[in-house]
Each structure stands twice: as C-alpha cells, then as structure tokens.
C-alpha cells in the first residue's frame, strides 16, 4: 500500500500510507481493548475485600510532604499524599508492599504487613543513585548507567526568569557549554557539548547538539520554546551513549522529557516572578569634548592646518564641555521581565493527566522592542486495558519578538547599540525640536536612532508551533517482557516575520561655531533618510512528522537482566518560505502593505527532506554488577547522493559496579558505591548542506544588469552550487569515554570522573585554503579532516547535614578540553611554517606582533633608529606616538621559507603570542544551603587558560561621525607623551593584535543566585493551600573581576550588554 502511492512531489505521501496503516492497527487494537477492558475493572478477577489503609509521609524534620506518589508494588495502582502528607488507600489484601516516591527523596518500599496505619519518613536523596536518568529511547538508573550522561537538577533552574530554556542551563553541567542568552531579549543561548568541531561550514547544525523532546528530534527553537515548569528532566548525552541517535548524535544530544500526569488527587500549582533587568554595565565612550580633542589631535598629526574646517576650534570645544549628549543613556532604561506558569496534574491508576500554560515576557531596555512567549501543553496517559497503554499529548507555543528595523548601512540587529554608541556625544539629538542631520550619505553614520524609534520601524517575528504526539504501547501476551510501541509525532510550525521601515526626515542646520561644528542655526535643508522604506513579510511553515515503531523486550532471569530494543524511525520535513515586499511606505500610514505604494517583489523557497533509520539496542546486566550495552543504528539522509545515503553507527559500553562485589562490600567501609565504566561508539554527522551532491542553478534578484534604458533589474540565473561532490557521505567520529562514579561517607560525597577522546575523521570539510583560488568557487564539503578531541570532566557533590534544620549541598565540577588537528585545510605554502596548524590544537593562541613599546619622544625614536636602521612599521617611518614591534622574520622566499629579519615590520612578523586564545579550564561551583524552610543557592563559575584582547571595533580609530571607547581620551600627543594609548593617526600601526591589547581572560562570577523561603505548612494549610514558596532570584549577579575599563566582562562593547536581572517570585501549590 505504501509503495502504491508514487507521488514524488507530495512529501507526505509515504507518511500517509504508513501512518494510515499504523492508525488502522492501533485503532483496531484500541477498540478491541476498550471493549475488553470493562469486564476487568468490573470483576474480571475475583473481587477482594478491600482493606482501608491510612498513612502519613513526612521528611526527616517531621514536616509533611504533599504530593508523594504511593503505589502498590508491581502495579500502577496508587494515590498521592495531600497537603498534610496524608493518604488514604483501599488495599486489596493488606499485605502489599507500597512504594513511596517523590522527586528529591529516596524511594522507599514498605511492606504493609496487615497494618492499617503507617507513618513513613522519606530521606532526602542527595546521591540520587536511584535517580532515573533519561537516555536515548529509554531510561536507566544512575547506578547502572554506562555512558557519560549529565542531567540537570531542575530545582536549580526552576526560578530563572530568562527567556529561553537554553540560557537556564548555564553553569549546570560539566562539559556542556552555554553562551549568551542573557543579553538581548528574545535571543537564545547557544549550547555546545564537549568542544565540538565542524569543518563543513555549510551544515545547518553547526556545532550544536541534537535536540530530542519526548523521543522526537526537534529544533533548537522548539527546545527554547519550552518553559522549565513543563519539563520533567533534561539529560545530555556526551559520549557514545548518543550513538543511538547515530549520525546526528556526533555532537552530543540534549534529551528532554516533558511532565506527565501523576496518580493522585488533582494538584494545581502556580509559579511566577517579576523582575527588573538592567545592564551589568554600559560601555563608557569618549565625551563630546574628548572626542573633538581626539579628532583635533588626529588631524594635527596628519598635518591638517588649524584653519581647516575639520579642526574643532576653542569656542566649539568650550561649548562641547558644557553641552554633551550621551545618546545611549538617553535611550537606555531598566526593563521588566515577568514569568507565569500554571500547571495541573492528577489521575487515577487508569488515567493520568497533565496540563500547563506559561507566559514569559521581556521588555527590552529600549522602548518599543520586546519579546514574549506563550506555551501550553496537555497530555493524558490512559491505561486502556491490561497491557495496553495509550498516550496523547498536545503542546505548542507562541513566541513573539520585536526588534528595531535598522536598515541604514548593513542590516544588523546590533545597529541600535552601535548607532547610540558611535554617534558623537557633541551631537544633540534634537535642536529646537528638530532631529539633527548627523552625517551625509545613506550609510550607518547618518542613522538617527530616536527618529527611527519614534517612527516605529520594526522587525518582528512570530512563531507558533503545534505538536501532537500519540503513542500506544502493548505488552504482547505471548512473551513475557515483550512490548510493542508505536509513536507518531506531528509538528507544525508557522512563523511570520515582518519588517517595517520608513523614510524619515532630519534637518541639516547652518551650524554655529567658528568652524561650524556646533549644532544650531537655521534649517539649511531637510534631508530624507531611508530606513528601508518597505513592508516585508516572510511567512513560512514547516511540516514535519516522525514515526517510530518499537519492539521492546525486558526480562529478568534470576540475576540476569536482559533488555532489548529494536525500532525504525522515519522523518519527513517539508518547509515553504515566501518573502513578499512592497516599497514606497506612506509616512504616517499603517505598518502594513495597505499603506505602501511602491513595487512588489515576492520569492518562495520550498524544501523537503527525509531521514530513515533502523536501530537496535541490547542491554545486559548481571546482578546490577556487570553492565553491558550494545547499540547499532543505520541512518539514511537526503543530504547525500543515493548511493552514499546510509551509514551504520555501532556503539558498545560496559560498566562494573565494584561496590557490589562481596570482597569490596565487606572490606571497604567508606565507599558506598563504586563503578567504573567505559564506552566506545562510532558516530557521525551529516552536517553539510542538502544537495551538496548536485550542481544546480537558482534564480536571484538584485543581481541583473540593466539594458536598454532605465528599466528595472531583471532576475538572473546563477549557480546555486557551482561544484558538487557526489561522493560526500557521513563523516565519522569514534568516541571513547571512561568514567568512574563513586559515593563515599554514607553517600554524602559523590564523585564522577570522565575522560574522553573523540577521534573525528572523514570530517565533512569545506576546503578553502588548501585549494587554489583559480577554481573560482566555494568547494563543496568533502570527507577530509581529522581532529582528535579530548578532555576531562570531574563532578564532586557534597551533601551535608549540620543540624536537623541546617543542611547544605555543594555541586561542583571541573572541566578541561583541547584537541589536536591531525589533518585540516592548510594552504600548501603554509605547510611546515609557523602558521601550519597541523598537529596543533585548533586553538593555537593569539596570533599577533611582538609588542616592544610605544615611542614617547623624538629622542626615543632616534635612539631606536640608531640601532635599527631603516626600521619601518608597515611601510611607515617610526614616529613618536607609535606602537612598535619586534622584527621576527623577512618576507617569504620563493621556496616557501621566510627570510632572515629584514629590519622592517611587515605581515610576516606575526607569531603565536600565547599558547591559547580561549579558556580551556572551567570550574563550576553550585552551593545550596537550607535552613528550615529557607534555601539559598547559587551558580558560580570560573574559567581560565586563554588570552583575551581588546576587540577590533574598540581598537579602530574614531572618526568625526563615529565615537570610540573612553580609554582613547588618554592618547599620545606632544603634550601628553606618557599617555596610555598611541597617537590616533597611525592607525595601521596600532590596529593589529599585539600584547599591547592583552587583557586577562580569567572570568569568575556568580551567574545565578536564589533565595527562597517555603512558608510553613501549618500556616499555609489555614488558607487551604498546600505549599507556598517565595523567592528572590538574581542572574548575572556579579563578576568578581573585569579586566576591561570600558565595558562589561563579556562581549564586544558595541553589542547589547549582559543584563543583570533581579526578580521576585512566588510558587503556590493547591
């Protein structure tokens, strides 16, 4: 049937047929089971006399714990405790064993033994050995895990008010890098696992990991659209344990399971916070006076006569001293963030349900821009009949973000910051209420931020997703432990992007001051600036499904535990993006096409792709002591030519729980648990662009020549992929990981150590340097590169109890990583020179010039030239106020070697100045102290090992229309020979990397801090509320050390600064 639908152009063709079959099968099943289910409940078995049973669950301090799940062992029959920790239960015999479980506490089994009441005290579970860890397509306990899997303590991140889930993960796990996400609202953080490398440059995945939500491969955007309150767990697969995802698992996998209903009385909970976000610090720029003096000093060295109109005269300088406008400060203000999450869950042993809705909003620190996000989720798990479970969940979200549309100059979302920082502070925003004309031209310098802000120009993005997942699982009756499962997930995403830009007027004035630098006088002319002048829409949809069919076997034979899994997975995606634009916006009209009068253009991009995989896994353990896992996956991808589509990715891992051995158990007292484990996996990626294997052409706009008069530019055909590589295939990563998990001192101290070695080869590489430029086109990715990555991760946890009321936890970790490039793209002429990276780390350090000093006086220059005849710096004679460097070598000879030092500084005189450029060592430090109901916790981090430098945009010179950081105010002049900065005029000699621009790369700070207080239940119960917790949460609270005088500790000064958010929140459980 599936093969009878031949339509190639209907990407869902295969889905429909296969899905139909699956639905027919499962509905037949469901119908049959539903019909059969009733008699079971009604009396399919001999009815027992039910025994009324009552109990209370408390914690170590005797406080009742609400919401504890109480299950009869071996069944799914159960209940949960109420606000007072009390549960009531009718037991069939009174001789059952009950299982008590609750997140953060050790699960406890208690035999009823005919009792009718029971008090149970649950022990807090710091070691979390029994924690269920979500791994690919299943779960394991921490104790029997053989791979390197990091998990997130959801409690640690539950209160964070940040706008994306990725940003909450910063500093939570070793080997998981999280950057960004706490500056510009609506911008998510980027996650990387274990310092991955990508050489292809044209793959959509980049160096990011694979995101899997409820067993379905989803996008990073989908991940970010989750609120932490709807997430049950997040695991990160760092080693061969990701092999079950085959190809795309090569760069790690982030696994998310969402919350499901729990058996028990309905529980409703609310969590919300409101906070204020402000810059950790705003960049300091030269004042108008400093800037004008800088320009004068620049021009004076340049030989510009004092009478030249470029010079700022004394009357003008005096005026600027009194009249200064800090454009950024005028525009910047603290922003408000808020987050609300509501969820409810409950159920019986037959049906459980969960539903949630969340809302998150961040204003930006500039007016008129913001981002917000709604999410919702509803799921039900139904036990249709004995052995048959079905689940259905619907979830989705709506994300909005709105930024300025800043089209003057190259379009860039940072243009708001840049414009505000670069605009000279001697320029006022308005004179007599008229916006001033800042600079000629259509470029960025002419940009008047406040007029654009006023004219409400925007770029907005609105993303909606709807995800429906249905699954059915059936325990096959003919073989104990065998289950079949079908999961179908449909994901529909729409996005609607819109840009609105207008023209606006600024006023050129006749100007005052001796050289006409003071803004004022009469209006000379009105200048119309064009900020895009368009309405541009780009709606798109993406339609994607994933279908899995599983067979799962799990059985215990004495001490032998065997489980096996076999499944197929298929995925198809179809996307369509249209872009429509109309120009000629009517100023004052509406921000849509009804108010645009100009020409239209529209384009469409449609894509389709598919993925098909077959997977098997076998797990074996003997007495929880010897652990073995084997997986294999065969993946097919449309990114490769048909004959190279499939790749096979096997992996094996094993563990030995030494502490289970009798000799150990009896002899070693301090060690409660000790496991060694290792894994080996052959993974890969398909991280290159689609249809890399076909030469093809596409239509392009804006690239046509004009013929025969003044007609519009026509469309053109240009090569879309000029060179194809039909032989490209999956690249390979062999991953080795060895680890130790241990618990000491009565489980109070836990230790995990991992070491890994990733051998990546046949890496899809877009060669550039090692191919002659005569080829004349970008080369398609080839299976070429070899890079070995390695590193270690150590986690140490301590769980201490000082008194009954006071306890603390400390999770800390250390990580280090580096790599060695065995074979990479190197220009032939650089092989065996100091620039040859072969055999080196991809971080070879900072490449720059050996800084010798700054010439302060003519005498210093003379003295230097006396010993360095004909010394020149990039062709220039040394002058006072210049930075100067050491001559290391001469120009390159024809044979590729470098000549002896030639007495002049050229671009041949660079070298690697430091061993490393970026930080390779990091330590995380996450303490938590609890006193009675008060908890204080923090996420702190230190990283070091690299070399930071002042960024290029801060080093470059200021111009009359572009300001620079404040440190430039102290620059060399004849009257200020001991200045900290060189003379601005000699741009080429200082705007290069050298030790002059070095800053410490040590970064240490408190990323998050949280103080929360749970109001005693005695109080809350009076108002019929089971729990109330209030908290104060801070993000980016402070950095211990900032090596820069002019900006915050991270990022370039001319991009949106890091925000510090202080928020208050409330959690209420009903």
């Amino acid at each position: 049937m599936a093969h009878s639908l031949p339509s190639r152009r209907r990407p869902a063709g295969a889905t429909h047929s296969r899905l139909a079959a699956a639905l027919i099968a499962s509905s037949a099943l469901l119908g049959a089971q539903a019909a059969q289910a009733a008699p079971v409940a009604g009396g399919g078995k001999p009815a027992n006399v039910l025994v009324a049973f009552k109990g209370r669950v408390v914690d170590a301090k005797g406080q009742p714990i609400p919401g504890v799940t109480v299950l009869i062992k071996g069944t799914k029959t159960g209940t949960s405790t109420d606000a007072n920790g009390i549960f009531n239960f009718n037991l069939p015999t009174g001789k059952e064993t009950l299982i008590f479980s609750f997140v953060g506490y050790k699960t406890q089994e208690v035999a009823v033994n005919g009792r009718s009441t029971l008090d149970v005290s649950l022990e807090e579970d710091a070691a979390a050995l029994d924690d269920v860890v979500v791994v690919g397509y299943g779960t394991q306990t921490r104790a029997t895990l053989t791979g390197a899997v990091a998990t997130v303590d959801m409690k640690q991140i539950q209160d964070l008010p940040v706008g994306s889930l990725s940003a909450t993960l910063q500093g939570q796990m070793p080997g998981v890098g999280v950057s960004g996400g706490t500056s510009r609202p609506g911008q998510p953080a980027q996650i990387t696992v274990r310092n991955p490398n990508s050489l292809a440059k044209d793959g959509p995945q980049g160096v990011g990991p694979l995101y899997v939500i409820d067993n379905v491969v989803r996008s990073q955007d989908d991940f970010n659209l989750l609120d932490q309150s709807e997430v049950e767990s997040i695991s990160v697969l760092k080693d061969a344990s990701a092999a079950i995802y085959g190809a795309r698992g090569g760069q790690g996998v982030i696994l998310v399971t969402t919350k499901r209903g729990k058996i028990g009385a309905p529980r409703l909970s609310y969590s919300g916070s409101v906070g204020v976000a402000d810059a950790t610090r705003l960049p300091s720029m030269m004042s108008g006076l400093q800037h004008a003096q800088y320009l004068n000093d620049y021009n004076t060295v340049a030989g510009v006569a004092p009478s030249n109109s470029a010079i700022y005269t004394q009357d003008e300088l005096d005026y600027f001293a009194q009249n200064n406008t800090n454009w950024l400060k005028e525009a910047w203000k603290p922003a408000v963030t808020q987050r609300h999450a509501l969820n409810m869950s409950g159920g019986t042993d037959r049906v459980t349900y969960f539903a949630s809705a969340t809302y998150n909003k961040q204003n930006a620190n500039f007016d008129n821009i913001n981002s917000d996000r709604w999410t919702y989720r509803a799921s039900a798990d139904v036990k249709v009949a004995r052995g048959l479970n079905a689940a259905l969940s619907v979830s989705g979200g709506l994300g909005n973000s709105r930024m300025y549309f800043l089209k003057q100059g190259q379009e860039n979302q940072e243009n708001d910051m840049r414009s505000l920082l670069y605009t000279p502070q001697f320029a006022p925003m308005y004179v007599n209420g008229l916006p001033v004309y800042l600079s000629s031209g259509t470029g960025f310098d002419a940009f008047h931020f406040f007029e654009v802000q006023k004219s409400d120009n925007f770029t907005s993005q609105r993303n909606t997703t709807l995800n429906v997942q249905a699954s059915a699982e059936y325990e096959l009756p003919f073989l104990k432990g065998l289950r079949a499962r079908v999961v179908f997930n449909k994901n529909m995403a729409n996005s609607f992007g819109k840009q609105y830009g207008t023209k606006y007027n600024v006023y050129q004035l006749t100007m005052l001051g001796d050289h006409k630098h003071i803004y004022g006088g009469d209006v000379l002319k009105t200048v119309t600036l064009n900020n895009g002048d368009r309405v541009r829409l780009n709606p798109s949809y993406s339609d994607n499904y994933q279908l899995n069919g599983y067979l799962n076997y799990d059985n215990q034979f004495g001490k032998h535990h065997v489980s096996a899994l076999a499944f197929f997975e298929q995925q198809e995606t179809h996307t369509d993006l249209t872009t429509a634009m109309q120009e000629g916006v009517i100023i004052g009209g509406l921000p849509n096409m009804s108010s645009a009068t100009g020409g239209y253009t529209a384009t469409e991009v449609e894509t389709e792709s598919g993925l098909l995989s077959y997977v098997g896994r076998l797990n074996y353990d003997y007495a929880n002591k010897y652990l073995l896992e084997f997986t294999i996956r065969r993946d097919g991808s449309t990114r490769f030519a048909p004959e190279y589509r499939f790749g096979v990715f096997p992996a094996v891992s094993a563990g030995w729980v030494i502490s289970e051995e009798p000799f150990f158990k009896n002899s070693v007292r301090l060690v409660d648990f000790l496991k060694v484990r290792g894994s080996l996996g052959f993974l890969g990626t398909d991280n290159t662009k689609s249809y890399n294997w076909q030469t093809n052409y596409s239509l392009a706009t804006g690239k046509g020549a004009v013929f025969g008069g003044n007609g519009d530019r026509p469309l053109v055909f240009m090569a879309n992929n000029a060179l194809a590589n039909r032989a490209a295939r999956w690249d390979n990563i062999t991953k080795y990981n060895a680890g130790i998990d241990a618990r000491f001192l009565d489980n109070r101290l836990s230790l995990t150590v991992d070491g890994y070695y990733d051998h990546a080869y046949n890496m899809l590489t877009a060669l550039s340097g090692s191919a002659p430029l005569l080829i004349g086109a970008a080369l398609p990715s080839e299976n070429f590169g070899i890079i070995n990555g390695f590193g270690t991760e150590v986690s140490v946890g301590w769980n201490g109890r000082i008194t009954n009321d006071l306890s603390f936890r400390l999770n800390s970790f250390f990580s280090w990583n580096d790599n060695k490039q065995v074979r990479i793209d190197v220009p032939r002429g650089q092989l065996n020179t100091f620039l040859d990276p072969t055999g080196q780390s991809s971080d070879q350090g900072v490449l720059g010039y050996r800084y010798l000093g700054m010439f302060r006086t003519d005498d210093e220059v003379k003295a230097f030239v006396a010993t360095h005849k004909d010394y020149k710096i990039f062709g220039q004679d040394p002058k006072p106020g210049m930075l100067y460097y050491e001559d290391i070598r001469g120009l390159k000879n024809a044979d590729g070697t470098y000549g002896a030092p030639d007495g002049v500084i050229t671009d041949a005189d660079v070298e690697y100045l430091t061993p490393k450029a970026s930080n390779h060592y990091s330590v995380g430090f996450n303490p938590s102290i609890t006193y009675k109901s008060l908890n204080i916790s923090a996420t702190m981090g230190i990283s070091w090992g690299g070399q930071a430098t002042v960024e290029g945009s801060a080093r470059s010179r200021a111009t009359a229309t572009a300001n620079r950081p404040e440190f430039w105010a102290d620059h060399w002049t004849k009257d200020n020979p001991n200045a900290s900065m060189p003379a601005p005029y000699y741009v080429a000699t200082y705007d290069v990397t050298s030790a002059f621009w070095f800053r410490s790369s040590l970064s240490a700070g408190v990323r998050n801090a949280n103080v929360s207080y749970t109001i005693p239940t005695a109080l809350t119960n009076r108002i019929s509320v089971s729990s109330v917790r209030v908290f104060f949460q801070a993000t980016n609270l402070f950095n211990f050390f900032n090596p820069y005088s002019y900006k915050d500790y991270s990022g370039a000064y001319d991009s949106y600064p890091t925000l510090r958010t202080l928020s208050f929140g409330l959690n209420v459980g009903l």
Partner: protein
Amino acid sequence: MKYISLATLGLGLGATFLLGSCEQVLDKQNLSAIEGSLIYNDSTLANLSLNYVYEQNLPNWFGQSTIGFGNPTGLSDESFSDNAFMQGTVQQSDVTDFGTGLSKDNNYGKIRTINMFIRDVRAGSLPTGTKNRLIGQAQFFRAWRYFDLVRLYGGVPLVFTPLNGVGNEARDLTYLPRNTTTQTFAAIAADLDSAAAVLPGKWANSADWGHITKGAAQAFKGRALLYAASPQFNPSDNAAKWQAAYDASLAARTTLLANGARLHTSYDQLWFQENGNPEAVMVTGYNTSSGDQTRKNNSYDNSTRPAYTGTNGGSNVPTLEMVQAYPMLDGKKPGDATSKYTYSLQQFYKNRDPRFEKTIAYNGSTWPLNGNTGYRLWTYVGPTASNPNVIANVEPSKPSNTSFYTRKAISPTASVSDAMYVGTDWIEIRYAEVLLNVAEAACGINNLTEGYTQLKAIRARAGIEAGTDGNYGLKPGMTRAEMFDAILYERQIEFAFEGKRFWDLRRWDKLDDVLNGKKRKGLTITFKATTAVPAATFTATRDGLNLDNLYTNNFTITTKDVDTKYNLNWREAPYRFFGIPQAAIDNNPKLLQNTTWNGSFDPLQ
C-alpha cells in the same frame, strides 16, 4: 480472549508492515534549485544567466572593476586621495584583485562563472547562431577579466574551463602556474577575436542596448593591445606590438563607423543619451529605480555633486593641477606665448577649452543643478548667508577642499533627494577613445599624420578654435615623442574624471614624473568687500553679479596644498607590476612572485 487475539494479530501485522523498508521517505528533490539542462536549452533562460555574467563584470563608474582596486581618479593628478599608493607604503599583499582565496566574486570566481556558462551553452541544444552569440558575449568578459589582471600584475594563470577541485587528485591538477604576459595578452586577443567574429555590429532590439557588439569587442582589443605596446609592457618599443594595436583599433573604427558610431555632437550631453548614443561603444546601464532588488543607480552623481545638492557629495573634486591643465580656447596650453589668449590664475576660467566649463564647476560658475537652470556655485570664503558677520567658507556643508567640483555627467535635473537614484549610464569605451587609440598606435608605427587627423577630430568636437592653420592649436610637425605627449595630454583633457588618467600614466611609466615629491593643490578664494559690493548684501545679490568683475575686484586667490601630510611618493619600480598577494601564493605555491617584489617571475616575458 477473542479480542486479545485479534488485537495481537492486528498489532503484530501493523508492526511487521511498519518495520518493512520504505526508502520512499528518502526520495526527495531539491525544490529550490533548477538543473542546468533546463536553462541552457532555452534562449530566454540562457539570457538570464548571461545577464548575471554581465552584472558580474560590467565596470562601475570610472571603469572600476568592483574588485580590490578602487577609484583611480585619486591615484593621479586629477583628484586628491590619501592612501598607501600615494604615501609609498604599498606592501606586497595590498593589491588583492588577484584574489586571496576561493570566492565566486573575485576575478577567478567571475572567470569560473563565465567558463561554466560557455560549457553549459555548448552542451545545450540551442541553435548554433544563438549559442555563438551567447558564448561570444561571455568570451568578451573573460578577456575583460584577464585584462584587469594582466595590467596589474603581468601574466596570470589562464583558465578556460571550469576547474574541478573536488577530491585530492582533481585538486592537484588545479595548481596551475602563471602564464607569461605575452600569453595572457594573446589569450585576451583570441577571446576578443572569437567574440568579434560572431557578435552583431548592432543589436536589432533597442532593449538590447548595452550588450556587447562586434565593434565593442574590437575596440576593447584595441585598448588591450595598446597597453601591450605601451612602455609598461614594451620597454624596448617593439614596433610589431604597435602595429598589432594599430590594426586592432583600425578594425574597430571601421566596424563602428559602419554601424553608425561617431563623435557625439555635444561633449557634455553625450552622457545623457542612452539608447542609440553614437559615441557609446561599451556602456554599463544604470536605472532610476529605488526598489531594493530592482535598483542599480549610478552612485557617482550623488557622491560627486556638492553635499548640499544631494544626499552624499563632495568626492572627486578636481585639483588645481587639472584646472590649469586645460588648453586655452585656441588649443594652446595656458601660458603658451603663441596663444592669442593670456592665462592668469586670477581669472583661470577665462577663454579656456570649452571642455573646461563642461567638466569643472568653480566659484561663481553657472551650473544647472537640481532643476535650477540658473544655479550658481559659490565656494569662496566670506560672509555667509546665515551670519554675515562671520567669515567662513560659504558652502553650507562639506566644502570642497580645492574650491572646485567635477560636473561631468552630473544630472542637471535630478532633485536633491533623487540624486541618489540617478540612472545615467557609464560609458566605458567612448568612440573618442577608439580614435585616440588609433592615433596613439599610429604614432607608435610612426604614422604621425593619422595622429594629427584624430587629434583634430577630437578638438573640433570639443569646440576649440580651428585657428588659421586649421591645426586646432596643435604644434605642426611634431616628432614621434611630441606626438605621444600630445595624445596623452589630449586623453588627460578629453577623458578627465573618467578613470583613465591613472592607467594612462602608469602604462607610460609617468606616474612618478607627474606626482613624486609634489603636493596636489587647490584654491582658497576669499571675498573682499568693496563699496560697490558690500559684504552685508553680497550673499543676496551675488547670483546677479558679473563674474569677471567679481574676480577682478572682489576675490583674492591663494593656492593651498591639499596633500597636507606628505609629499606624493609613487614607487615606480615595484608598482609597475604589483605583488601577487602572499595568501594567493600560499594557497598555490606554483604561482611565482614578480621580480619587482623579490620573486622570480618576469612580467615582461
């Protein structure tokens, strides 16, 4: 129990079926691209592809190649500029037109696009005549690209097919060495010959105006071979090279004449006629559209006019040297005792070659702009309109630093806000150039009569007085060397601010003579109040006052340096052939560096 069995059966069947292989899932196609075979079997679609070749290669205003090397007017005595060339600090990797890495947008990227086009058209099923015309136009631009390279560096690797760089073995074959300069020029000539053989003398459809014609291919060959014969490439003055250049330009002139080309009657209006312009041999079309994807505006206009008459402005201002270079109305040089007109700096504008007034705008000149036909330009220092008590430059913003502006090809009618959307076409090869190429090559083979004929034709059109001897001010009986100088001088004036001066001086090895040790100059014109013309009312009345009277009585003229920082320093020897960027050599060590940059490649071979 019956139900359970049924269900089991159903699920079992379902699972078996589902697990069955279904690779249809992977049966996908690229929905955003199109196969080459569709394009090159259809002449309309193939023309869209050719259109991309045009856009990639047509020069911008000043003949700029859009890669690396920028506006050449500032690299001569025409206009001020401050850069490493003028400072004498050019390093071996500074001229990056060769390319520094794989890119579809550098010279070799564009050559690849052309080579792919030729390959695909050949493989397509279009009629032979259509194929030939498509290929001929592409070959023209391949020659254009190699010419761009050879004049900067000397010989370069010649690539005529799209290289396959995928896989180590194929890639090894792409490490090509440089061809000699002679081979490179020969390749340029061969491509242009092929193009000329198949291209029409004139495109029948006016919508095709701007496409390369047979005459354009021949004219460009004439230009290329003239370079090859010039001292830069021909220091031994090999007569055969001049002969080849002469033959090429003569053939071009013959073809062009047969197809209606001639000197336009107006030296200034020739810029504003588009379709059918008789002087336009090769043009780059610009349009007046303002749409983001549909516009291709001529940005020269807006950047050259005074800032306050457009939205940018003030670039390409003429130096005093250029102002003084213009002949007098009788064709004699200023200060020439035999001229019937006396030249004085105080009234530099008087009785000059009419091309002066049409090229250079000066203080007090009448310059139709922004639709105002009686607009007068004022660039003096004196009482300003806004405040008569302050003495300052009267230009409202961004004053010219020489007191002059270039007015060639500046639209007289575009409004202030439309100046950025002007559609004036750039004429890369004018018929006048073909004539002067004929003259120069003829002079090379000692045919001085031909030189006189062409120079007179140019001067006659310019409006220079023929004089009693009918020589238009040209010295009779010039020697070969004098004739070369006269032609170079004529080119300086005729093609002022057309991006030709720098290349002419360079191929004649004269940049150092003209520039070195000097500082380019401008004027400061200061208003001096008199009882007849008081300061208080001057700004209100000046537009109605007689210019000669004003210059005699009310303006003080002083010269000033516009090169304030250093004396010009053009290093003849290394800059005659620039260095191949080190990155390109690293990328392909088979490329040898020029002898002028410490390498072993002799660009004179």
